[in-house]
């Protein structure tokens, strides 16, 4: 993996935790003890969408679109 690709992967990982940190900080700013059920639901929805996307990508590994 070249440096540019490694940085992209690192940024992808960081993105999830930045979003999480922002929501946590928002909760603390508003004086709440933690995240609400609705906020957790947004993370759940994002995870379900990513897992579905990932399954498609894995199924298509090695096919022409992935090779480019």
């Amino acid at each position, binding site marked *: 993996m070249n440096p540019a690709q490694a940085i992209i992967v690192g940024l992808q990982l*960081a993105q999830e935790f930045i979003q999480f940190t922002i929501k946590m900080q928002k909760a603390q700013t508003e004086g709440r003890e933690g995240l609400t059920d609705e906020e*957790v639901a947004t993370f759940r929805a994002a995870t379900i969408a990513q897992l579905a996307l990932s399954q498609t990508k894995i199924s298509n590994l090695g096919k022409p679109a*992935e090779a480019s």
Partner: protein
Amino acid sequence: MITVRQTQFVWLLALMGLMAGCQYLGAPKLNTFNDRAAAAYATITAISKANDSIAQYRVRQAHGNPDYEDILSVIKDDAQNVQDQLTQANQAVTIAESFKDIDPQAADTRLLAVEIALKALQKYLEENAP
């Protein structure tokens, strides 16, 4: 041409950068069950994205290899195995959420099991990253 040691070094740099970024932002303290559940979902999403990137990179690297079909099969199996574990972890968090108000202790235990499993998966990907 980048050698294996160089790619491992690049990965190490990327991980160090990520850790430094989290320290800069201030790692949030997980106070409640909901905080931990959201962190688990975010971790599953992040590992899934990393799994995709690593698998796609390995496939690109394998192009031109005389054993390409065999290598591709192994890469797909490995990526699918990680994907299956992530899917199970996702379901386990959702199940834990569903009974957090009925049996908080059981929900907490279930979530803890997911957290341990996710740490093991992260370690596996880190150690086997190209």
